[in-house]
């Protein structure tokens, strides 16, 4: 073999993985980004574990008795540690809306109702979905009842509310 034929000029490997272009002037293209997080609920884990057992776990301050319907493991008022307590499964609509649009992840679920629920004996509220009622049926002050998913997702949608 002649010497010259052995010499290969260095080349970057060519692939079929091009980009999707939308425009040339200026160049506008698709850029994909995706990630899986290793997310810990940390000291809030009992709340999410509670949903699986059909309980809404809130917290109550040992020192000042402030009741958190959405848990805080330290009291926002006095800074003391709180203890886990069960929140009643019936409450009242403190405020609400019906969403006809949403973030992309929730668009397919529209229209859906959001409610902030208030509970007897608790100072803070709880954000949830209200199922089984339309915009015209929902009123501030109406009684609502908690229900739980059978197949838990380990997120706050494991509980939702229906008219009581």
């Amino acid at each position, binding site marked *: 073999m002649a010497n010259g034929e052995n010499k290969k000029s260095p080349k970057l490997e060519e692939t079929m993985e091009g980009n999707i272009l939308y425009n040339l002037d200026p160049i506008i293209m698709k850029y994909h980004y995706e990630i899986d997080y290793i997310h810990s609920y940390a000291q809030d884990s009992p709340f999410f574990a509670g949903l699986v057992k059909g309980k809404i776990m809130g917290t109550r301050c040992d020192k000042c008795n402030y009741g958190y319907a959405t848990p805080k493991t330290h009291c926002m008022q006095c800074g003391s540690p709180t203890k886990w307590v069960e929140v009643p499964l019936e409450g009242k609509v*403190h405020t609400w809306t019906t969403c*006809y649009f*949403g973030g992309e992840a929730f668009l397919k679920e529209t229209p859906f109702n959001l409610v*902030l629920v208030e509970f007897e004996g608790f100072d803070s509220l709880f954000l949830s979905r209200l199922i089984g009622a339309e915009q015209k049926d929902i009123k501030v002050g109406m009684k609502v009842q908690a229900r739980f998913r059978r197949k838990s997702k380990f997120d706050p949608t494991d509980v939702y509310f229906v008219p009581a």
Partner: protein
Amino acid sequence: MRKVYMVSGGITKFVKASPEKNFQLMVKDAFDYAMKDVPKLNKDMIDGCVASYFSDHFARQLMAGIMVQDYLGLCPKPGKRIEGGGATGGLCFQSAYEAVASGRMEVCVAYGFETMSHVETWKGNEFIALASDTNYDYPVGGFYSGYYAMMVVRHMHEFGTTREQLAKVSIKNHRNAYYNPYSQKRMKITVKDVLNSEMVAWPLTRLDICTMSDGAAVCILASEKMAEKLTDKPVLITGVGTGTDAMRMADRPHGNVMLLPHEKASDYKNLKYPGVHSFRAGRAAAKQAYEMAKITNPLKELDVIELHDAYTSSEVQTYEDLGLCKYGEGGKFVEEGYPFLPDIDYGLNLPKQGVLPVNPSGGLIACGHPVGATGLMQAVFMHWQVQGSIKKHFGDDKLQVKNAKRGLIHSHAGTGTYVTATIMERGF
């Protein structure tokens, strides 16, 4: 603390999408405009910068601030980024104020931008909703318009505020925008148009809500010594206030109103405050700014306001936080015409028209809301109002509030978590 002046400002026209310019170039355009307005200022006299942008997700870039600073040719001077959701611009402005007030800098540039067109609108809404508790709130249906809708539903329940009253904010801001070349939504609309517009989250329609945008804004702040050298129309910053509240709306307390000097505890005997109907952070910010600027009756002592109207509802709620009227009277305040400009025909019967113009620029509703630029845009518009230079910059003096000597700018983050209020006065 030393006296701090705003000596110049510049903005790009906010647009839905600006693919032909990246964020560095947008800021550069606004910066060059501001520099041109004070020809005696050169880059050597600038001591440092503060960068304002909200979202790394939208930017698809970490440390975008330094990329602006190097593009402006301002390295190796001091610089940093400020972030606080929708209030990022207002916080950035106050950070630049602090740099000059403390004596660390003689001249400080506050610049801000956002490039929100890089994702589709509903993906953008998802990004914005990540500025709510991602354990407890976001998964339930993360959507800021939904959150603000819940807040105004409670405001309506508590005080009897109506959709028609909210619509009047939309009419005002879209109509004012007619005379602002920097605005992007110029519309002559009626109450009916707003109510019949597509429903986004009850009771807020598309015409009650601002638009995600691309844009940039720049403010140049200076010490007294430098302000005297640079301009014969400096604007003095006489009050700064910043308030905060819990991220989760569910956690907002139900206590007593934080009173301003012209209010009494007996005004609010049965009101649980702030709940989710009012922004305690806005009241806290206003209270500090008023105390510092020695304002005891804001309705009488302010001439013009640019406030954060991401939603018509939040403009009405903010009238009350700022003490322009009592809590619960925000709806009536707009209905009677107080925040409208005196010389524009809005097609409405407004017995108190023009008492204290709010958002003469058209606000976020008509100019758009490229988050990191927004709070600085308000400062630029207010700078021009207080200088009396609206005609020079807009090419028309229709929006110039006559004899505007003292104004307030107000910047607001997600459901009222961070709010800033800043008082700007004629310094000449």
